[in-house]
């Protein structure tokens, strides 16, 4: 008997019992159900929830694969085995099997833990609440490994995923009802619970933590480290990477966030397939540029001088803010989450603009939280329903006015 008929039999056997949703979910995830309709008129739409989710995952895959190469590249570069890239995006120093394998063996466990724990919690809740398993975790499960540092311990990730799925999503009623983006809830939890694993100069390069421990234990090794650009800027250090490195992504950072080029490609793919909102992406970029320009003006007007601790970040050219840190990744893949973003088109402009605006504001003024985009998106997630409310009320008012003019 094939797996399909096996699953079908199991489904029939457990029909109406507690475990039914779990078997249903497995069955429909892998196969088309046996009981589809064959004739008659039906409304057909290609983009059901599963397909929408899969499209987003496809858009993220290049970032994931790049992240694997980059993990190995950063490691080998820090150890001193290879030279820094010299010839653009397709540099041979970067795209080596050695680089890929280091990253692969480090990142695949993160993906497995993220999906395993997350889907486990979803299945558990579906069984307790007696509803079907929802596909909501598919995208979150892929986002999570992309927005954590490479050296994060797996058990921390597991705890954070449980927290994020239960407190971020299930308590509000599951997929589609959540107020906060679950992936960012998971990252925020890690950030506040285990700050030493989410910032500093050790966690971004594969093996740096272990090496520091070995050296402390008396091993004869050179310490390796790698600070993210935002981290070093916040400490007032100069930028150690060229603009092309930052744009292509040959920099330390969370696994999937570094390559602005691939993120833009993913974003275009999302816009082209009409899954991601171009309004939110565009307005976020506008918001970030506005705030960046304001800071640049403040510096050139001489209000902030080099003695200020904000000087380095404030004097960073406004366009560079777009390609360093997780800004691009957050805006393309997380601000556009249809559940937590504004629903109205006008609302989306405000929502996106403030995400960009606040991201840069937090980056500059709070060196303890270099990754402003995470907090900015979470904050605007909370305000999205309020924005929608006022947009709708405004529209109603306008229409009432029109009605009055006509009848008067």
């Amino acid at each position, binding site marked *: 008997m094939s797996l399909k008929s096996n699953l079908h039999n199991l489904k029939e056997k457990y029909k109406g019992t507690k475990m039914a949703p779990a078997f249903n979910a497995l069955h429909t995830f892998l196969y088309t159900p046996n009981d589809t309709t064959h004739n008659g008129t039906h409304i057909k739409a290609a983009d059901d929830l599963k397909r929408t989710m899969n499209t987003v995952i496809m858009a993220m895959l290049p970032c994931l694969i790049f992240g694997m190469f980059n993990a190995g590249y950063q490691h080998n570069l820090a150890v001193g085995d290879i030279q820094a890239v010299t010839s653009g995006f397709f540099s041979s120093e970067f795209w080596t099997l050695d680089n890929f394998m280091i990253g692969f063996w480090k990142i695949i466990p993160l993906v497995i833990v993220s999906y395993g724990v997350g889907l486990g919690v979803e299945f558990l809740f579906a069984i307790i609440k007696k509803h079907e398993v929802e596909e909501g975790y598919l995208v979150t499960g892929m986002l999570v490994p992309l927005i954590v540092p490479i050296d994060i*311990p797996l*058990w*921390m990730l597991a*705890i954070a995923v449980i927290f994020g799925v239960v*407190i971020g999503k299930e*308590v509000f009623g599951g997929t589609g009802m959540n107020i906060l983006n679950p992936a960012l809830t998971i990252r925020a*939890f890690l950030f*506040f*619970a*285990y*700050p*030493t*694993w989410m910032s500093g100069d050790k966690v971004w390069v594969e093996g740096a933590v272990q090496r520091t421990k070995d050296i402390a234990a008396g091993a004869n090794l050179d310490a390796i480290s790698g600070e993210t650009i935002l981290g070093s800027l916040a400490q007032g250090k100069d930028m150690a990477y060229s603009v092309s490195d930052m744009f292509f992504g040959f920099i330390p950072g969370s696994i999937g966030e570094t390559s602005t080029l691939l993120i833009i490609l993913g974003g275009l793919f999302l816009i082209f397939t009409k899954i991601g909102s171009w309004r939110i992406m565009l307005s976020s970029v506008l918001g970030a540029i506005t705030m960046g320009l304001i800071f640049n003006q403040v510096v050139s007007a001489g209000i902030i001088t080099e003695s200020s601790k904000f000087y380095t970040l404030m004097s960073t050219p406004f366009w560079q803010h777009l390609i360093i840190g997780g800004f691009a990744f957050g805006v393309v893949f997380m601000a556009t989450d249809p559940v937590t973003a504004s629903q109205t088109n006008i609302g989306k402009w405000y929502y996106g603009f403030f995400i960009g605006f606040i991201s840069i504001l937090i980056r500059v003024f709070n060196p303890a939280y270099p990754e402003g985009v995470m907090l900015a998106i979470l904050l605007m997630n909370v305000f999205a329903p309020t924005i929608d409310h006022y947009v709708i009320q405004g529209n109603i008012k306008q229409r009432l006015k029109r009605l009055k003019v006509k009848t008067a």
Partner: protein
Amino acid sequence: MGLLSKKDSKLILDPLTDNNPITIQVLGICSALAITAQLKASIVMALSVMAVLAVGNVVISLMRNIIPSKIRIITQLVVVAALVIIVDQILKAFSYELSKTLSVFVGLIITNCIIMGRFEAFALANGPWKSFLDGIGNAAGYGLILVIVGFFRELLGSGTLLGFKVLGDPIEKTGLYALGYENNGFMLLSPMALIVLGIIIWIQRSRNKALIED
């Protein structure tokens, strides 16, 4: 309880479970969030509130027939303030470190909604013995939640209980820490107290559906 009649023991037991001042009436949240990072502070806070509430309830109950209802709030405040100052001074005298940890929150017992709530809702209408039991019961219900929240926050946030390193030493890397375990810094922040409290409320209401209001 042989000592108490059925009605009297209900006064003490109800606030512990189905009429809990924190999880059901949602009163006294501020102090529950602020001082529960350590179990010891939670216990002392619970005992302080218990002393103030039990004695205050008795005093108000004794005076209930002579307090003009127009100025009853200010009278109640004077009683609480006097009791809180006594508790505060005792803490400062015998346990200065702890009173520094609790900082303003001992003083803020004055504004703890549970206390004014019990004065208004119970002591003004019942005799001293019943008011005393009611005070003990409500303070115990408040303390129970504080201790539960404090237990989890100290255990997961600092890896200690009442100051004892129950999970091992994070610096020497013994016990759990030898396996790579680390303390959860989020547990020490107030938002996590709110979440722990929320989880307690969630568990309580899913066990007893009658408590869910629309």
